[in-house]
């Protein structure tokens, strides 16, 4: 009985989670401007969104910043995750705390702090400053993901590698890195996602003409939800879903004996 109750609760949660998404998708196809009146099916808003160069420019900026900061965050975060467990306690605890702080500090606080910093140091606001600010919390994201993978990995393979005579760099390249790679990539994907959807920090440290997609959406949304923005959101959603499906297909094809596949009953 409890089981059925739980299942019903879960279903309700899914409905709750998807309600706004359904609204967004449905009204992206509404030919009328007014959201509350259904005027018939139309795909014209998608075309309009693609033709609007402020939207495509903002999309490009968000991609650039997202990819760039994912790269930097991966490098910084992975190195941090590898070094952290071996550091003496005196260094490890404060660094751990710092990683935690960068993740939970409310964005408004970090956003204004970053703005004040750039103003005081005279660094001009622009794509660079957004990227710098994003890396601060994304490096921590990558570090956490990699560390979770790293600590559960076990060192038998590395020790075996040394027993066979390989040096530390070779071992890292041929043994550790491949095993770490999925975590690094996952962290990178998370970093990209957080950066792509980031609003508050970006709002404070963006310069003239460096609009990211969330910033562009915000300036449009101030007038109420617009069909063009809905269409943009649906396209982004489709793009992300598409990438995931693509990745899943690639994974299924290339698996053959990977521990990941056999161990995941869900898919």
């Amino acid at each position, binding site marked *: 009985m409890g089981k059925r109750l739980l299942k019903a609760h879960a279903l309700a949660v899914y409905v709750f989670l998807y309600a*706004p998404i359904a609204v967004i998708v449905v009204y992206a196809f509404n030919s009328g401007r007014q959201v509350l009146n259904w005027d018939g099916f139309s795909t014209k808003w998608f075309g309009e969104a693609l033709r609007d160069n402020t939207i495509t420019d903002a999309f490009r900026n968000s991609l650039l910043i997202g990819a760039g900061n994912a790269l930097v965050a991966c490098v910084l975060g992975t190195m941090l995750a590898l070094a952290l467990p071996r550091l003496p306690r005196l260094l490890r605890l404060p660094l751990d705390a710092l990683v935690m702080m960068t993740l939970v500090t409310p964005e408004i606080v970090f956003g204004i702090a970053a703005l004040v910093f750039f103003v005081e140091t005279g660094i001009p606001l622009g794509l660079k400053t957004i990227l710098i600010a994003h890396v601060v919390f994304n490096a921590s994201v990558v570090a956490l993901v990699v560390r979770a993978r790293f600590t559960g990995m076990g060192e038998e393979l590395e*020790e075996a590698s040394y027993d066979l005579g390989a040096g530390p760099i070779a071992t890292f390249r041929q043994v550790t890195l491949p095993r770490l790679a999925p975590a690094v990539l996952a962290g990178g994907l998370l970093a990209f996602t957080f950066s792509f959807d980031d*609003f508050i920090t970006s709002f404070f440290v963006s310069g003239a003409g460096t609009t990211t997609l969330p910033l562009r959406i915000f300036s449009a949304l101030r007038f109420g939800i617009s069909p063009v923005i809905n269409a943009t959101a649906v396209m982004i959603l489709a793009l992300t879903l598409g990438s995931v499906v693509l990745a899943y297909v690639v994974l299924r094809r290339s698996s053959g004996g990977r521990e990941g596949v056999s161990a*995941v009953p*869900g898919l």
Partner: protein
Amino acid sequence: MRRRAWRAGGRRRGGGPRYPGWLALPAAGWYAAFFLVPLGFVVAYSFAALEGYAGIAFAWNLDNYRSLWDPLYGGVFKRTLGLSLFGTAATLLVGFPFAYWLARYAQRKTLLLLLVVVPFWTSFLIRTYAWLIILDPEFPLFRALHSVGVVGADLNLLYTPKAIYIGVVYNYLPLMVLPLYAALERLDWSLVEAAQDLGDPPWRAFRRITLPLALPGVVAGSLLVFIPLTGEYLIPVILGGDKTVFAGNLIAQQFLEAHDWPFGSAIAVVVIAAMTVVLVAFSRIAARQETQGG
């Protein structure tokens, strides 16, 4: 020769390959330069004063903090604390049974988990604005609920605190669900079943076995929800009509509308201090859990 020394070093430590500490330097340097220094500036600004229309005069006094001592701002901070507590409790209440079901009973776990995350691949702003449509009295939802008699005819949630609460639970739910699921998923459910076979009523088994093992997830989720919530300001602006003000709104206003960066910095310092206290408390709890073999 070098290789053997490396191996020896690794073996002696008993912890495998030893990565040099300097690997942590780039990240640490980045944090220092682009996180700690900015926060330091904010603290410094909090002791300054507004000069003219938008200038800063470093007066090095506590005036901003004295102004904050006003019961009006005390009310804002109390309201913020209330929102954070509510958000944490609500997401826990909704999220725990969900995560439990997902971890224990669900068939296609990864797919279902992915389905939780997918809505959050749309823009946060659009998701939140969409709630304005759902909560609109003219939207079919309310008409339907009203015809069934669940709600009164004049219920208007737009731009009310209730709308803010709904928006908060909606946007912070995954932050609670994911860590909860991660913890619950590790559980060996056979233990629970065994306890029940031995005669324990279900709630007893839950309390004695499930709950302690799920606790790290509860702590992690609570942290991930509570602390960022103390700075939340967009949801009150979008869903609350910019009428209900929390600490995050105060800070944003000072930087965007009123130009009083020093005053805004002082408010930010208060939020940072509160956040640090919570973090320290949580880490103590977590440390104690570890030593108790949790």
